[in-house]
């Protein structure tokens, strides 16, 4: 059973440590997405797995074998790049077949393999074309085909959808997900787009400044964020984070409103950050928080409203058909069960399961 293990993985450039003791274990067939803002070390991690970046310290194991000192080609991996990196001077057939250059298969076997992969990707009729004659989505398919043809143990994707337009991105996202179901291989996918991460991943690894912030299923990272960074990074629109203090059985918000939070005891006076997702706030004539709508953004099914609550901006969603308008005075109500609580200093979640 193929497993990928990163143990205390560190990357330094000179004296600057950019990746700090990364630990991760991925099982065969799992789809793991590394997500985080630029500079968080997600691409560096991927490139270290691929063997394109030297490992400063730590261990990378693929299928029970330490691959630290192996060449990329000997690691049983394939990688799809953001820029596709398909060769402009070669036809689609040669591009896909390029991954088999060093394989010991016979020519007819190679051709059969290329045809099979092209069939899966719906590229059969384009095999004799050059990349210049293909659309962006087709080029990306060729790049994926070149990875697939080698039948690697691990697929690595380095932001492969970033160059596509929004519609095509959604379509390719779906195709990659289908492909994963079909080939059942381990896939490690790097992106800065949390929607991509949520939709594709079996598990998400959220990174920031060279540290892993949380590892979990999309539902876990959304509903039980380990800290304020994850809470705000995952989910659009962002989670509201409000200043609050503990009252024993609940919290008192910065504006004096008190909310009971079931299942948790908080020392009275303890400084907190109170997190609530926009969709967990219900707008009405009255509520716990009252304020003035400053901006309303209609999205169709729902409308995003920004409410000024005593100088603090709170984001909420409202029904699409009868939304409040800018300037309206409204109230927002919420339930303590939907609340996320974080320590004001460390930012760590106070709920069980938080880091």
């Amino acid at each position, binding site marked *: 059973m193929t497993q990928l293990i990163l143990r205390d993985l560190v990357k330094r450039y000179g004296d600057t440590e950019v990746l700090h003791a990364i630990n991760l274990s991925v099982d065969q067939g799992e789809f793991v997405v590394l997500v985080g803002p630029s500079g968080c070390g997600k691409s560096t991690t991927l490139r270290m797995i691929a063997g394109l970046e030297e490992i400063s310290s730590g261990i990378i194991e693929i299928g029970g074998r330490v691959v630290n000192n192996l060449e990329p*080609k000997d690691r049983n991996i*394939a*990688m799809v790049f*953001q820029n*596709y*990196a398909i060769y*402009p001077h070669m036809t689609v057939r040669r591009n896909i077949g390029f*991954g088999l250059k060093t394989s010991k298969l016979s020519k007819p076997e190679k051709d059969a393999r290329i045809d099979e992969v092209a069939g899966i990707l719906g590229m059969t009729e384009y095999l004799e074309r050059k990349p210049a004659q293909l659309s962006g989505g087709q*080029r990306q398919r060729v790049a994926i085909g*070149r990875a697939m043809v080698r039948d690697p143990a691990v697929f690595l994707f380095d932001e492969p959808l970033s160059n596509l337009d929004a519609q095509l991105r959604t379509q390719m996202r779906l195709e990659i997900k289908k492909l994963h179901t079909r080939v059942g291989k381990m896939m490690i996918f790097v992106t800065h787009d949390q929607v991509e991460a949520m939709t594709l991943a079996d598990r998400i690894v959220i990174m920031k400044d060279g540290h892993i912030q949380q590892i979990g299923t999309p539902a876990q990272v959304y509903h039980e964020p380990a800290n304020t960074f994850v809470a705000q990074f995952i989910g659009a629109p962002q989670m509201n984070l409000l200043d609050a203090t503990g009252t024993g059985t609940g919290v008192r918000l910065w504006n004096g409103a008190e909310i009971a939070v079931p299942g948790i005891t908080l020392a009275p006076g303890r400084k907190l950050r109170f997190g609530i997702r926009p969709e967990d706030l219900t707008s009405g004539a009255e509520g716990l928080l009252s304020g003035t709508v400053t901006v309303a953004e209609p999205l169709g099914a729902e409308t995003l409203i920004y409410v000024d609550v005593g100088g603090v901006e709170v984001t909420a969603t409202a029904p699409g058909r009868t939304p409040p308008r800018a300037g309206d005075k409204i109230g927002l109500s919420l339930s303590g069960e939907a609340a996320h609580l974080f320590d004001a200093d460390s930012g760590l979640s106070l709920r069980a399961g938080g880091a």
Partner: protein
Amino acid sequence: MAATDDLTIRATSDALLRAQAPRKKASMAQFIRWVLLFGGGILMVMPLAYMISTSMKFPWEVYEIGLIPEEPTLENYTYVLEDGRFFGWFINSLIIATITTLSALFFDSLVGYTLCKFKFRGRYIVFIAILSTLMIPTEMLVIPWYMMSQSFGWLDSYWGIMFPGLMTAFGVFLMKQFFETVPDDFLEAARIDGLNEFQIWWQVAMPMVKPALAALAIFIFLGNWTAFLWPLIVTTSPALYTLPVGLASYGDEADVAWELIMTGAAISTLPTLIFFLIFQRFIIRGVVMAGLKG
């Protein structure tokens, strides 16, 4: 030079084509532009026309200004082509220019690629050292070259003529700059696909810099085809002369046989013309970096 000629000719013919387009009032500025272009074109073509004209003149008419020979003759061509020496020089030049071009393309691009794509200590110093050789004029180099040839036993041999040009600093510079345009993703993808570094250079990087290679090939081929000073110094046997050196030897101490020199020159422009026509399409077409999202 040939490139400039071609551009001028094209510019001129463009101007003429536009002149034939549906009649509309040409402005004064346009008129001046045409005149200037036409004048430039004439200026470029003149030496060529004189070369052809002189090659068709008898010796007694060579110093007359007229462009049209009074009695046009092809006798000079017959003489030059039947003169066994000319063919020998032609072959010498062809071999030397071809080998030098191939060698320079190979080494210049290999070194340029290495300096561009590999990070190693001292890489910048190496690059600057190579570049700085561009500041030394050929005239200063011929003495050390001569001494080197002497100690290697290369005087009066193909090797002697060729060795200074087997790798060029300009080519290294040009290729390094062009390899900067090849994104690392391509090379890394090839690395993952299992190619070794040499294969990556040859199979992936080189096809992507074809326009640069074509341009460099033209520069180097023309440079070697027309090289005069060094081949003159290093060769002593007429059998080893290159075309320019051989042509200059027409005539005797008292008289230079211009009509023969011009005839030889006219014939010797043919290969360079062919060479340019073959490779210019690479330059003009260019390689679209279609494998990358623009």
